[in-house]
């Protein structure tokens, strides 16, 4: 479903990803763990197609198609979803309106007609319950004035409405207390299916107690230093990343 081969990428001229190889099949959930500055978020942003992340070598294929040739909206329409580490506040655009525009953009891309208003409303309500979101959040501007937990829930809610085939969760656990973490994890788990793949990026093992991955990869200095099963996450939590820090901070990016 997603194939990353020999991927090299730079940000502002600095080499951040240094030859990543990763294959995720339908139905699989992979976790990427790693110390700060190892390139985790860069990988998420490269997959989603954000400006400023320059791929210097390698390729990413999504169901065999060359992902790197697509602009971000095409990737989304093809079924890719990025849950943002820092969801953006967009004053003046109502959450519900934004979601409908997104749903219709994807439908248009597939050659389908716009969503029926009643069907959309039913879908939204059903999905809201999944992440225990309050209806008032629909009318508010996208993420504006949302707490950290509300923003992350809104990401999972959008994912639940858009039903992508592959989702990248970029540090979805950061800034969440344990209750919010469970809600978010439950939302993700409810969407897991044999057709859908997930790439869960996290610094801490804690999230992986709730979203249990099939494979865990350790990213260090822009390379996958080690791969294993879910037990690897537990080991990392115990041992820390010190073992892997041959060249500390080499891939650290300025914010």
């Amino acid at each position: 479903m997603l194939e990353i081969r020999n991927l090299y990428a730079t940000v502002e001229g600095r080499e951040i990803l240094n030859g990543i190889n990763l294959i995720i099949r339908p139905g699989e959930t992979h976790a990427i763990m790693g110390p700060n500055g190892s390139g985790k978020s860069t990988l998420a942003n490269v997959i989603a197609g954000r400006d400023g992340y320059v791929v210097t070598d390698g390729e990413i294929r999504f169901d065999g198609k060359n992902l790197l040739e697509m602009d971000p909206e095409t990737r989304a329409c093809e079924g890719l979803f990025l849950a943002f580490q820092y969801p953006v506040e967009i004053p003046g655009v109502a959450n519900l309106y934004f979601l409908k525009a997104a749903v219709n953009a994807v439908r248009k891309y597939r050659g389908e007609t716009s969503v029926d208003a009643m069907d959309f409303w039913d879908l939204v309500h059903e999905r809201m319950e999944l992440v225990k979101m309050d209806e008032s959040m629909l009318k508010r501007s996208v993420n504006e004035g949302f707490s950290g937990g509300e923003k992350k829930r809104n990401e999972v809610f959008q994912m639940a409405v858009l039903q992508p085939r592959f989702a990248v969760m970029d540090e979805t656990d950061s800034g969440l207390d344990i209750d919010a973490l469970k809600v978010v994890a439950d939302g993700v788990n409810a969407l897991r299916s044999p057709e859908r793949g997930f790439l869960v990026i996290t610094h801490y093992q804690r999230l992986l107690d709730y979203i249990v991955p099939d494979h865990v990869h350790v990213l260090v200095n822009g390379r996958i230093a080690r791969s294993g099963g879910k037990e690897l996450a537990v080991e990392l939590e115990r041992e820390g990343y010190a073992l892997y820090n041959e060249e500390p901070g080499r891939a650290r990016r300025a914010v």
Partner: protein
Amino acid sequence: MTAIAPLLSDPYHQSFAAFMAERREPEFISRLRQAAFARFETLGWPTRRQEAWRFTDLSDLQALTLQRPSTALIDAAALPSLEIPTHRLVFVNGRLAPGLSQVRELPERAMIAGFSQALPDHSALIEPVLDSLPGLQSHPFAALNTAFWEDGALIYLPRNAVIEEPIHLVFYATGGDMAVYPRLFLMLEQEAQATVVVECRGQGSYCNAPLAELQLSHGATLHYHQVQEESPQAFHLSGIRVRQSRASQTQLHLFSSGGQLARTDLEVLLDGEQAECLVNGLTLGQENQTGDYHLRIEHAQPHGTSEQVFKSVLEGKSRSVFDGMIHVRKHAQKTDARQTNRNLLLSRHAQAHANPRLEILADDVKCGHGSSTGFLDPDAEFYLRARGIPLAQARALLVHAFAKDSLTRIALTPLRERLDRVLATRLALDSLEGN
């Protein structure tokens, strides 16, 4: 020896003399015209060396302002509509077009009429007040308007008169290189209420220089809208003077999307305690358009409130100018005056100039101003795109989000909805329903 350039005003003299020779009107009006013409001569043609005209390039305009308008007919289909019952006066090339105008039933003693029509019977009402409001004394186009206006709207509401239907004034110019100087005089007596929509539009090349005088007595309420959608070749130079008495309220909504050069000079005198004024401006600029606003809010009495909110959305090589002054006189304690100017640049070649100014002579006031100019937020753009929304639509959504609270402040629903459609069309958005 240096050659002496011919006096700037010579052609104006000829034009004014010819104009006056044709007029048949009460002497007080002739006197006003002569005084205004003399003022224009003293002021001279504005140059960019003058601070107030620094950003206003009038080099193509001067010849136009001498051209007297022709008589023309227009098709009713060319007129803007509010899609609800209104009192409508249409002025084509500065003259009332009775066939396109319709005034509905009015409260007793209230009047909505063309000036030329009303003048013979209502000189006694008009004489003491016409051109009597302070403000715009050094504005050459206000002087030109008073010298050359031919017709206009006269709106008078007696005490406690409330007119529910909007008063819809259309100043239409048919082009062919001419200058039109429509006039509006509005007077609301105590506790009277009115909603006025002034639409400026036309075709081809012309200069439209309307002047409005708005006078509110105690407790009167006015919702005033100026909708500037002139033709792309047109010059628009409007002046608005307002005087508000105690506890009166005005909302002045200024929407600007047309013309090659559109400038509005506005002066509001809050001349009674607890007077309130909102000035809400939205300018859409594209190509080489200039949208230019010069405002002065004069707080003369205590406990007054004023708010200026001006936004511009600029594409291409367009520019906006916001020059806003809050002046608080020494006596005007407990004034609450705010001013905000926000500009969104959609191209690297667009420019926004902001000149917010405060002059505060009282010591117990709340005054604030803020100005910001920027591009669309790339993070917000990416966020929308990452959900599948195409780039053009993402940008349009963000622009609409920026501009829409200007429209939200317009209480007159059919106008607000129409302007929202203008905005959506400009942004090439299919529908903004639900946002």
